[in-house]
């Protein structure tokens, strides 16, 4: 029984479809906002109502808080789900919802500020005795960044305090590059997030990206749904994710799960959250990176191994209901893999390839889930991201989950746009992946240089 009755879905693409599905399962009505480019989208066909809020440009549609709130008002919605990306981590949207009497499906503005600001989240982690990657607090000047580099040592990473996605990020190998990199990264962060503050962290050569999925309800119950491994990335964009993270040292596994629950608990947080950690393969230790105060693209792998529907839990939590499971009832079973299929050309440095999808046929089965908004005849426009589908498979163990993912990728039929499916098929077939011998730059540094895209 949900405390909300009509949800405004403030997103597009596969995640809009995913949220509509959870609303259907919870018996909640849906209103979808679309830009002029998305009037014919799959989500628009599935929603109970559709409101066109602006032109294709995201800044005048999906990124415009005023228009999204106006649409929610005009259609009598009592809740708003922001999905991921777009406005999902903007405290201003959470705040505007509070002011408008609309339930935001996610944390309140204060908890979002506390978790979304990386520097603040790190201070909190440090105060809770949680290991934080060797790094600095916010650096505000060239002198500060040089002092931080002195302490941390090179190579290091400059990262934006106000956001992620690789923007405002620079790797510095040589002392003479430090000042130039600081200026460039700060300007980029200012432009992308309206916040030019940076911090510095040690650059780990063989790093794994491991994250913990958390759910927290209004009564203060905080549970984790285990961990995920998102090590297979290219330029900080995740490509393949899995749950659980394989072969974590026992101490590291227990500590990060515990750290994530304590962090979210300390924030007075409500909803779904992810705590990201960097695991240093060479040193055998880990450090807290950041909190993502929203649903994540890769949430389905946790759903497949726990059997818990994270989006439905989000709706329940927002409606004031307690979590549907108690901590001791969460059980992990088997292994799950998610492959992001993007409309990009791996042969041309992953250039986005917008176009009309002439053929779309994706295999779906008991162990294969496909989250997508594609259908034959739908056009991938150049206005938004290039994600076509997430192919998620499960198996009794990692090996069988990977084998099923490869089978599914071989059977995916797409015509009209180039995709990354063949590339991912080859990544998953590589012996290093089977053996778990990868790190966050493995795709760029080791796989791609020897990859023959033609498959010959």
């Amino acid at each position, binding site marked *: 029984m949900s405390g909300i009755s009509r949800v405004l879905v403030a997103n597009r693409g596969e995640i809009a479809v995913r949220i509509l599905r959870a609303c259907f399962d919870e018996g909640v009505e849906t*209103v979808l*906002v679309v*830009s*002029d480019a998305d009037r014919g989208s799959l989500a628009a066909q599935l929603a109970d*109502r*559709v*409101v*066109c*809020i*602006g*032109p294709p440009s995201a800044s*005048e*549609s999906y990124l*415009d*808080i*005023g*228009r999204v*709130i*106006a*649409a929610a008002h*005009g*259609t009598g919605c009592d809740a708003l789900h922001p999905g991921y990306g777009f406005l999902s981590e903007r405290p201003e949207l959470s705040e*505007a919802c509070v002011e408008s009497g609309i339930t935001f499906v996610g944390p309140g503005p204060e908890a979002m500020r506390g978790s979304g600001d990386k520097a603040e989240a790190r201070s909190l982690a440090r105060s809770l005795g949680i290991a934080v990657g060797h790094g600095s607090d916010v650096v505000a000047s060239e002198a500060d960044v040089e002092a931080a580099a002195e302490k941390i040592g090179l190579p290091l990473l400059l990262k934006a305090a106000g956001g992620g996605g690789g923007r405002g990020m620079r790797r510095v190998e040589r002392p003479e590059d430090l000042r130039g990199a600081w200026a460039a990264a700060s300007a980029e962060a200012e432009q992308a997030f309206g916040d030019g503050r940076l911090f510095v962290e040690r650059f780990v050569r063989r790093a794994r990206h491991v994250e913990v999925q958390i759910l927290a309800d209004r009564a203060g119950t905080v549970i984790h749904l285990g961990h995920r491994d998102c090590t297979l990335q290219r330029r900080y964009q995740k490509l393949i994710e899995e749950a659980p993270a394989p072969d974590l040292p026992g101490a590291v596994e227990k500590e990060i799960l515990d750290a994530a629950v304590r962090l979210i608990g300390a924030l007075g947080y409500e909803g779904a959250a992810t705590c990201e950690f960097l695991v240093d393969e060479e040193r055998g230790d880990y450090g807290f990176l950041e909190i993502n105060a929203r649903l994540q693209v890769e949430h389905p792998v946790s759903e497949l191994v726990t059997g818990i529907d994270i989006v439905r839990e989000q709706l329940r939590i927002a409606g004031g209901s307690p979590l549907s499971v108690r901590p001791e009832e969460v059980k992990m079973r088997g292994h799950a893999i998610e492959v992001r299929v993007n409309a990009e050309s791996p042969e041309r440095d992953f250039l986005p390839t917008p176009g009309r999808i002439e053929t779309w046929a994706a295999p779906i089965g008991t162990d294969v889930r496909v989250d997508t908004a594609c259908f034959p005849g739908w056009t991938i426009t150049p206005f938004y991201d290039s994600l076509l589908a997430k192919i998620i498979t499960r198996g009794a163990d990692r090996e069988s989950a990977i084998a099923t993912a490869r089978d599914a990728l071989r059977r995916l039929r797409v015509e009209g746009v180039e995709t990354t499916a063949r590339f991912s098929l080859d990544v998953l077939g590589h012996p290093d992946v089977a053996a778990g011998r990868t790190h966050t730059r493995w795709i760029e540094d080791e796989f791609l240089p020897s990859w023959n895209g033609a498959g010959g």
Partner: protein
Amino acid sequence: MTPPLGTPAELDQPLVHALLAAFDRSDWLEMTVTIGNDRLHVSRRGLREVDEEPEAESAAPEAVHTEPTHATPVPLTGMVVESPSVGLFWRSPSPGAPPFVEPGAHVSADDTLAIVEVMKLMNHLVAPAAGTVRAILAENGARVEYGQPLIAIDPDG
């Protein structure tokens, strides 16, 4: 009652009347308006057709002749100013003030015609060219969507 925002736009009675009134005052020979699944076609050549579901008959004032539905629609001559955003449609600068324009008024390019309000942000709709206002296509205070036709103007010359 204000039509709920988000339902497919349709040719309802007030809109049909507004369009017919605009046509009456115009010097156009024919007019075809298509909104969603509804199509209104009006002609001065003794042909009149209102193709509206489900009340096609009652809405047609004088259905003398029915054209085949595959007839090529005659484009609406003149200009239609569309809503720049989702929001509320206001015909006056403030409540109680006289409307910016009435049908029949002559306007210059860039004259304000109406306002679409998005969360207290006032978007001014301006005339794209000098001309005569033929019709106001939404009620004052109506909830409108992006791209919705709001004001029809017959340009000078």
